[in-house]
């Protein structure tokens, strides 16, 4: 079973890509879809790592979800700020991705402490 950081990384990255791809349905930003996907993936990877590290240190489902939500929302806000708009459309999905990664890293994945032992 992969550890929590790797799980966060993979999940965050995949969901980030998925998130980025859905921008195609917004015609106004369709032209920059590649950049959006990469940016979203990168955001997802960072969020995944941060949330995974948190999950290794703190074993609490509730806190993991809240932390994931906060990290996902914050990183999404940065992207939206840079875009000067689409705050709601970017932050809500970003927060949800953070929530999902937060839940998954708390519930699944080895904590890594046993492996070290």
């Amino acid at each position, binding site marked *: 079973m992969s550890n929590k950081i790797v799980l966060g990384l993979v999940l965050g990255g995949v*969901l980030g890509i998925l*998130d980025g791809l*859905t921008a195609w*349905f*917004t015609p106004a930003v369709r032209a920059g879809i590649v950049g959006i996907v990469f940016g979203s993936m990168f955001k997802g990877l960072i969020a995944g790592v941060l949330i995974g590290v948190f999950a290794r240190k703190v074993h609490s489902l509730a806190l993991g979800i809240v932390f994931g939500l906060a990290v996902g929302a914050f990183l999404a806000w940065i992207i939206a700020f840079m875009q000067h708009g689409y705050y709601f*459309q970017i932050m*809500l*999905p970003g927060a*949800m*991705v953070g*929530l*999902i990664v937060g*839940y*998954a890293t708390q*519930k699944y994945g080895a904590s890594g402490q046993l492996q070290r032992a």
Partner: protein
Amino acid sequence: MKFLPDQVVVRLQTGMQTPDLSGTRYRALELLGQGGMGAVWLVQDSILQRPVALKILTAENSSADLAARLMQEAVVLARLEHPGIVPVHDAGTLPDGRTFYCMKLVEGKTLDHYVLKLPLRERLRLFQRIAEPLAFAHSRGIIHRDLKPSNVMVGSFGEVLIMDWGLAKVLNVTGAPSAQVPGAVEESSLTKQVSEQVMDAFGGFSPAKQVSGHEFTRAVKPGASAPENATAHGTILGTPGYMAPEQERGDVNLIDQRTDVFALGSILQYLLQEPPGSQQSDSYSRPLRAICAKSMSAEMSDRYRTVQELAADVGRYLDGMPVSAYRENIFERTARLVSRNRVAVVLVLAYLFMRLLFILFSRH
């Protein structure tokens, strides 16, 4: 002839039923229960100042085999030191000639009463705990042979105890693992000690003929008639409904831990009924049905090899994992994974739903 009034008759009859414990450390308090061979009395241990249970032979002692069988039960129990097996404190012969053994007084309920209002998952967890002392007994070469809900007690602290080892069989192992019996005991010292101890307690018996399965009745004096409940080939011991086919046929030489696996499977089937023991079934899931079916296969080779394997499969079911007794199709596997990861699935669906809404709104 002296006329005995009614109250005297009743008094004498009660007195006759009360065991003669004079000269022993015990004082009779109450009859707890009576079975085919013995009665169990609540007695007070006057030295240690605690209540204990005394199992006493009650059947008319037409054959010493019954007394020896009770003693064997005590010796077997004494060797099985496990939290799930009632400990034996003492054994011997009462002043009135009756064989007895003294054991811990278990306060609690039998399984059939305990599980009546328990939800299914709790019953299954309880079931897993029944397997533990049984596995231990098997590791010491002892087969219970009479497992059923009324022989399992749940104590006041929730501990599970397996009772009534009166029909237990001691497997005779020659020192080499048997090819037929997976996981067979690899030491013969326990069985040898058990048989020698029993024979010493009843001196005068001719040496037992060593046969596989070590049927105790071989220790009867030559020329003695076969006693009741002897386990000579062809004799049936056990409880209908929980007896494995080899037991029903009287194939005593085939009996091994898989016989107990069968009985354990019957107990599992019992626990799965709603309510337990109602004979109303079929509402439980296919994996559980498959586990029951595998445990209760007519062919010994088709059953779980050990009680641990059976308990492990039940454990896997409880954990939402696939069980070895049942091959899932793709839909069942998906349903199980979804069921096991319900929250994650809901979150992902919620995310996708939200995304879909965004797409729809952005079009407008």
